[in-house]
């Protein structure tokens, strides 16, 4: 993560696979936990916590998509639809049966995993752009079904009001309370993914991505693992949808449309395909950059324009800058922010004695 090593002294596979290669890594993790669990919630205003909350939800979704696209090499443009599956499953369970979040959340994930595995069936025969179109069809079919099935959508408005999550009889509704709720699941998702990708399953995914025929020859059941990858990825998406539902207090399929799928693809491509840190960085980048750009421009634009003109100028400039920065970062490092971060680390590893 943040530390520097003096060299590579690993003598066993276990040491190579360890999540914490050095004691300092453990301290770094501890410091990060303290930062996020104590310092940030105490020191930040609710507004800034709300931005972090949105990023935390996005991180869960981006991790899921990265498992499928980055690690297994199967493209999907139906990620947002799986979120809506999770969202409506949880909303219906919470409203009709009155179940608490610790049941609806995994249930939403499992339902999304099931639907995801079904939508993933074409991946057994087709790859690349063709698979993209097949998953696109999945996205549109799921949207249509939700829109036209009142039993799922809860009526013409297609939105279901969901009660706030409660913990030991305590309702979580302020941004600060929801922050801890979301932080817990985002952290869980990160740790789960870190462990998944260094497990037997994760390695099978990577083998399929790198060369599926070779993977089959060395004994990996690619049908099973491709569907498993779709299911796991959709599970994350479903959980992400449930988190949105609890965060906003409503399930509404209009917030999970095709553009959202594209947004998540953008997150993992900018962050770095096939990397956990990349998913996190990408999700944070795409969620926060537009906000940061606006906050940065507001005082500046206020000097030159009237309040009315200012909003128009900022809205357009922000879009141009956002697009420009995405291009800039991708040109500087096509492999994403994760690689950029590693390059910086590698530079400082031998600094100031680089040769």
């Amino acid at each position, binding site marked *: 993560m943040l530390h520097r090593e003096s060299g590579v002294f690993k003598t066993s596979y276990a040491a190579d696979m360890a999540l914490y290669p050095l004691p300092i890594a453990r301290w770094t993790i501890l410091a990060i936990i303290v930062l996020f669990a104590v310092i940030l919630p105490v020191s930040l205003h609710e*507004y800034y916590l709300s931005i972090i909350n949105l990023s935390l939800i996005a991180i869960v979704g981006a991790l899921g998509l990265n498992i499928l696209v980055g690690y297994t090499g199967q493209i999907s443009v139906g990620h947002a639809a799986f979120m809506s599956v999770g969202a409506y499953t949880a909303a219906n369970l919470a409203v009709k049966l009155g179940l608490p979040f610790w049941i609806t959340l995994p249930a939403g994930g499992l339902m999304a995993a099931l639907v995801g595995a079904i939508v993933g069936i074409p991946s057994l025969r087709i790859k690349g752009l063709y698979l993209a179109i097949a998953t696109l069809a999945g996205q549109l079919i799921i949207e249509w079904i939700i829109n036209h099935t009142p039993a799922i959508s809860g009526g013409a*408005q297609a939105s279901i009001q969901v009660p706030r999550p409660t913990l030991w009889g305590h309702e979580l509704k302020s941004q600060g309370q929801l922050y801890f709720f979301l932080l817990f699941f985002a952290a869980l998702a990160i740790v789960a993914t870190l462990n998944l990708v260094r497990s037997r399953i994760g390695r099978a995914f990577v083998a399929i991505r790198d060369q599926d025929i070779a993977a089959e020859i060395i004994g990996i059941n690619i049908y099973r693992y491709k569907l498993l990858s779709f299911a796991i990825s959709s599970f994350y998406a479903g959980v992400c949808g449930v988190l949105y539902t609890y965060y906003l207090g409503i399930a*509404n399929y*209009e917030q999970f449309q095709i553009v959202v799928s594209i947004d998540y693809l953008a997150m993992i491509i900018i962050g770095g395909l096939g990397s956990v840190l990349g998913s996190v960085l990408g999700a944070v980048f795409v969620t926060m950059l537009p906000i940061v750009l606006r906050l940065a421009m507001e005082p500046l634009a206020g000097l030159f324009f009237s*309040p009315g003109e200012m909003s128009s100028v900022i809205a357009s400039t922000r879009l141009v800058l956002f697009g420009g920065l995405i291009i800039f970062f991708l040109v500087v490092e096509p492999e994403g922010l994760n690689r950029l971060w590693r390059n910086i680390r590698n530079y400082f590893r031998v600094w100031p004695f680089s040769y």
Partner: protein
Amino acid sequence: MKHTRRWLGAAFAAGVVALAAGAAFAQDKEVVFGLQCDRTGATQTVGIFLCPGYHDYIALLNSKGGIEGYKIRVVEIDHEYKVPPAMEAHERFKLEGAILESLYGTPQTAALTKKLEEDKLLGTSPGFGTAAATDGKKFPYVFPIAASYWSQGAAAVAFAKKELGGSLKGKKIAYLFYDNPAGKEPLVILEDLAKSEGFELRTFAVPAPGLEMAAQILDITGRYRPDFVIAHLFGRSPSVSIKELKGKGYPLSKVVSLVWGASEADIKAAGGYAVAEGYHTLQFAGVGGDFQVIKDINAMYQSQGKPVPAAQEVSVYYNRGVMIAAIHAEAARNAIKAKGGARPTSEDVKRGMESINGFTLGGMVPPMEITEADHEGGGWVQVWTVKGGKLVKNGDWFRAYRDVLNKHLAATN
């Protein structure tokens, strides 16, 4: 070189002014309004005209000294018609100390409904959001402040009835709608009215993005041949519907569009006023520049030596922006008055909003009466018809079938 120097000069002057203004802020009395906009997203064709209208009206008020001694500061957030930035916008408004906020978009309104109630900050959702929000008892902090889709649907049927000679018995009405929740919302009212008025209703759904509807139009004009068409489309699809209906020879004088398919921009995109001649539109704010408030805004711009705002070319949306701003300001004014000039809280503003009655802004705003039970203000609309190269007022403010609507309102939730 000359330019650079002028810019530097301007920047310096602006800096001094900003510093002075910053110092003045401390003493100046100020209230903050939050404004959510979509200037760059899926419905930017609305936002780029509506939001300038909002800002211009507030600027006009401020140039006259504000309301009850308070200047108004507008914080605008462009959410690109996405839901997460709308939540961020709401939190930002809270940070800035906003006393009310203007929501924009049906999914965004749905997503913020709960939060508004928890934060006790009122949000207005004119022309979108759920019709059930009319009921202020169930949705205490959401204010449609304009005809909901239910009211619009009922008004469209009443208008069709008038146009078809006072009776709908045995007539055929086609409902052409965008296949999303907002598009489907008026259906319950239309189906109910079809039974009570004795007309036949057939629905024609247009899937997103709504640019391709040749099959539906062919079905309407070739097979079904309705006596009247009620259209409820969004974005760029209204212009397609006008063009297609015209192309198939259906008389546009037998078409009425709900409020989001009713702007000058839609008519121009369809091929101009000559093509759309006869097309009826429902409006919840007056259309055109023939209102005192628009003239005042233009006079303000002229006195500053600036051209008249270009956004006025689509006066349907521009005027709606002005109307929203005017109602917000009126609610704040009521709140300040009620507190005897003290700074109002967001709950005071809610009560101020609920005491708006007979505020018409020179005929541009319907004669609404917002109460604690009725956050819609009565559900008034006006029909404006394309005639001779412009939109012409076709009758006064009206509303219809309130008993049917109330029955459905009572049945929701």
